């Protein structure tokens, strides 16, 4: 296939992460000829999502840490007199300190060979992949149930002029069903009994009664129900990415669910944070007066710029100090600081805090009672959606296709072509390269930060309620000064990211040490290992861990272009995922690059 690649493009994009995919789509949509390649066998790079077997293969790749040193020096011969080459790296160095723990017991009568490598029930590093990867090339878009599930559509119903304040607009409910109302064919055939179901249907046999113990082999067997994100992010419902999805009409390739609740971890207890008007009204934990205080403060934050007299005197101090000066009980101060502004005691000043609070509130009510959306089937869907848009408008895609070097014209100092793994020279005007593709020579001066990540599979929610299908976000403040707050996102099975009866929990923070060192204390606070045998005490408060993964990911965001050595001006750099919650960074890169 690769032999037939055209030899000339307008734009060549290397790497299929979110920023690259957005730019690829934008270029293709505006009529440019786009070649989009990725050396990996899957879309998304570090933005990808994996099934359980997929993540195991991914693990294997990164744990083995083998150098792929089958360097083909042939390309050197292609470099002409008046040319230079910038060699690209063929090894992914962005993932480190990978550690896996399995707590779920393996079923002795089944698939013994698969679980053979596991040391039962004790924290142990898996050194071998227990299963052979089921799919050699992981293609999430194969999932057929994708189209039948209709949950939340990205169609905005209410014109925003109607919305006086975000606190008042929680009547905006955009469901898949309302979308159907617009659908002509659906309307004509609508016999009344056929009301469309709002709940995605999962075919299969995963319906486990709640009490049944979950074994590792079950997880393996149901592995395709998992969509495990490498980065854990949410979409701010008035964030740049949502705007972009709507504007570009890419939203129709994806489906979303509203995060159902914001949680806080306080005094050893997980509790729900009332943040919307409806939450405050329904809250049983707030007193009447607290309700008023909170609403009053939040209403002020919505348009704090209009009342500078309220905060001008406090601009120099931290947001947490400022909150103390407001009419708020300690309870409310904690909620606002950690769960709404999502900052820490020391991290932000008054203005930053107010800005963050306003942004949170601004996003409330557009699609539901919280400001966030999560893409069904995982964050990894998003780069793929943009890739699809790019492909629909003529972009050419090659996975498992690596680029050996960029060819630079000595005289003009412009990049003119790439040489791919087959030695084919492909000419282009513009080149977009994701940071991880650059070799150490190029990045020798770059200072990277790290993100600490953990992925857990658990058996119950961190806060039990009537419904077991909750999507929650929880911020656990750093304990000592200098440590970072840990963001916890818990996904239920209806997000199509984990099998029934389990929850997929993502922990993220800016690294100070290895991922495990950074995150394990929080994991221990919130969870307990899955017991070997069922104890009588069924009322264990904490959810139990079935499986845990830790790894560090390189954070190449915020790297100045000047820190890379000798980049020609028509080579643009895209960064990998950052540690933030939203995706604004990715969209901003696109804007900057396209302009």
């Amino acid at each position: 296939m690769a032999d037939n690649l055209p030899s000339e493009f307008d734009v060549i994009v290397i790497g299929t992460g979110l920023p690259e995919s957005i730019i690829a789509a934008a270029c293709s949509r505006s009529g440019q000829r786009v070649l989009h390649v990725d050396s990996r066998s899957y879309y998304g790079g570090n933005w990808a999502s994996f099934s359980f077997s997929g993540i195991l293969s991914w693990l294997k790749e990164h744990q083995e840490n083998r150098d792929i040193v089958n360097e083909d020096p042939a390309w050197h011969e292609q470099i002409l007199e008046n040319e230079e080459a910038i060699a690209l790296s063929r090894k992914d160095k962005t993932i480190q300190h990978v550690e896996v723990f399995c707590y779920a017991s393996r079923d002795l009568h089944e698939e013994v060979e698969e679980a053979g490598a596991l040391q039962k029930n004790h924290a142990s590093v898996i050194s071998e992949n227990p299963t052979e990867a089921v799919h050699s090339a992981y293609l999430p878009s194969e999932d057929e149930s994708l189209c039948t599930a209709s949950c939340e559509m990205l169609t905005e119903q209410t014109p925003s002029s109607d919305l006086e304040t975000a606190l008042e607009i929680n009547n905006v409910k955009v469901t898949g069903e309302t979308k159907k109302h617009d659908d002509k064919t659906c309307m004509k055939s609508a016999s009344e009994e056929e009301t469309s179901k709002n709940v995605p249907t999962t075919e299969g046999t995963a319906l486990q009664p709640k009490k049944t113990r979950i074994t590792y082999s079950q997880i393996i067997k149901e592995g395709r129900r998992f969509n495990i994100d490498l980065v854990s992010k949410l979409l701010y419902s008035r964030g740049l990415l949502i705007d972009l999805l709507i504007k570009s009409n890419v939203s129709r390739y994806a489906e979303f669910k509203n995060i159902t609740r914001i949680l806080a971890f306080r005094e050893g207890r997980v509790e729900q944070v009332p943040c919307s008007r409806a939450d405050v009204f329904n809250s049983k934990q707030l007193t009447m007066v607290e309700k008023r205080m909170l609403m009053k403060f939040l209403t002020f934050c919505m348009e704090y710029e209009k009342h500078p007299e309220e905060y001008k005197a406090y601009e120099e101090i931290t947001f947490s100090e400022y909150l103390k000066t407001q009419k708020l009980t300690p309870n409310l101060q904690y909620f606002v600081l950690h769960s709404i502004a999502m900052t820490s005691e020391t991290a932000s000043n008054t203005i930053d805090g107010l800005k963050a609070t306003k942004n949170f509130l601004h996003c409330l009510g557009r699609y539901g009672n919280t400001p966030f959306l999560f893409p069904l089937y995982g964050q990894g869907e998003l780069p793929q959606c943009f890739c699809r848009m790019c492909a629909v408008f003529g972009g050419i895609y090659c996975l498992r296709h690596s680029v050996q070097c960029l060819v630079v014209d000595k005289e003009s100092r412009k990049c003119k072509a790439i040489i791919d793994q087959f030695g084919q020279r492909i000419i282009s005007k513009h080149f977009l390269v994701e940071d991880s593709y650059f070799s150490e020579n190029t990045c020798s001066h770059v200072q990277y930060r790290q993100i600490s990540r953990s992925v857990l599979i658990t058996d119950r929610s961190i806060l039990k309620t009537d419904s077991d299908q909750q999507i929650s976000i929880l911020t656990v403040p750093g304990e000592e000064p200098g440590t970072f707050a840990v963001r916890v996102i818990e996904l239920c099975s209806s997000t199509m990211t984990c099998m029934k009866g389990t929850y997929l929990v993502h922990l993220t923070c800016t690294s100070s040490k290895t991922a495990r060192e950074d995150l394990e204390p929080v994991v221990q606070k919130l969870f307990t290992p899955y017991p070997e045998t069922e104890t009588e005490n069924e009322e264990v408060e904490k959810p139990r861990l079935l499986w845990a993964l830790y790894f560090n990911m390189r954070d190449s965001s915020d790297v100045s272009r000047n820190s890379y050595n000798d980049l020609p001006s028509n080579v643009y750099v895209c960064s990998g995922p950052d540690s933030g919650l939203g995706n604004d960074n990715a969209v901003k890169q696109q804007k900057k690059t396209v302009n």
Partner: protein
Amino acid sequence: MHGRLKVKTSEEQAEAKRLEREQKLKLYQSATQTVFQKRQAGELDESVLELTSQILGANPDFATLWNCRREVLQRLEAQKSPEELAALVKTELGFLESCLRVNPKSYGTWHHRCWLLGRLPEPNWARELELCARFLEVDERNFHCWDYRRFVAAQAAVPPAEELAFTDSLITRNFSNYSSWHYRSCLLPQLHPQPDSGPQGRLPEDVLLKELELVQNAFFTDPNDQSAWFYHRWLLGRADPQDALRCLHVSRDEACLTVSFSRPVLVGPRTETLLLMVDESPLAVEWRTPDGRNWPGHVWLCDLPATSLNDQLPHHTFRVIWTAGNAQKECVLLKGHQEGWCRDSATDEQLFRCELSVEKSTVLQSELESCKELQELEPENKWCLLTIILLMRALDPLLYEKETLQYFQTLKAVDPMRAAYLDDLRSKFLLENSLLKMEYAEVRVLHLGHKDLTVLCHLEQLLLVTHLDLSHNRLRALPPALAALRCLEVLQANDNAIESLDGVTNLPRLQELSLCNNRLQQPMVLQPLASCPRLVLLNLQGNPLCQAVGTSEYLAELLPLVNSILV
């Protein structure tokens, strides 16, 4: 991601759209024309259904076409077999739903659905409830759908408890929902019927307290949301007072009997609404209103024949029976007395507390406390201030009088748009308080001077007042209802802004009238005074009409019996 087709560019789209629209318009117009022709020709068959559905599908607000459809369906009902009809109904229901999706607030569509369901032999109400739930899911404030839901719930005899739970769920989602709160106020009295003797439409205390907590949550969360305050008002309000005759007055001099009702009534000539028994025998009389207009009013009177008032008996009893109101009252005129009366006490009957309930004052007291707490946090919230005023009135109007007036002042400052309404409300409360004080003092003299009154109300309560002082207020008129003050002898209304005197008419005992420093422009406005036979003293100083030429002459002619007219 599959099955999503490639979209054309915007220019292509725009052009395609334009053509499509043109085509649509043509179809629309020709279909409309055909329907009207067929209707005129009486060809009401299935083709009309088909044609109208094309048009209504795009524009469900075409009322005439819905009528057309009803005519067709009615005709087909007679022609078709039950099976065919069932299929027809099924299609019609599906079609209606698709129309509702086009416009969920189409009056015509919801009405047609009501009509259709009402005609079905075995309507599937469960499905209709589900439909309502779905439409309210999309827009929980769609009052058309709420209306339809109430219709369905009533037809299907859904237990009120279930409907109440439904309102719960919607209020939980968004409490700014008049429909949902209103539905509660209909359902709760059904769920908790009061014993026959109790006030109808009210709630037992435990339920009331729970509802108060719920609604407090709402107004503490958002004190500017009106729906919660309205519900709060309903919770604390009470049902309309029972019909009653408030006062009966017989005057020997004027040979006249006057009745005051608890609500405005119309007593037509020769009707049975009002019966008069004199000494236990019925007496046919002509009823009229004091101002002679015979419009619905609180006060009606009749002339008595001399035989009913003679001094031969030690006393005469007069009994008035109000058949419509199921009420009666009796009074006695003793020998040698000029007048006799029987009157409800304003203090005992708590006449003026009808704004809010007679619930246990502890409930009201604690509501007052929470409102005051809220008011501290939200000193400028008008709903809170108004509720405080109303609660204080319900608790003890005289005790809280001073405080109430302060709250009125604040309220007027924060809500200047409603200043006039507030002035009127304040006038009403002050007048009520003065009435209570007069009753405690057991006198027939009412001082309402220097109270900044803007309006006069409760005049039907002043039947027995002989001296009334309205000086130094902001009154602009002496309204027709003033004619109810049949015993009034002296009326002082100096220093107001009075322009008309419609109410100073037919006052049989009025002797002195003082109207200094008002805004009486033309001598003509004094015309009503001519009907007051005993008027001897009239003071008009300081009115514009004093400057007019010929006023004195006009007055001398108009009021020949008045001894002293000060101009």
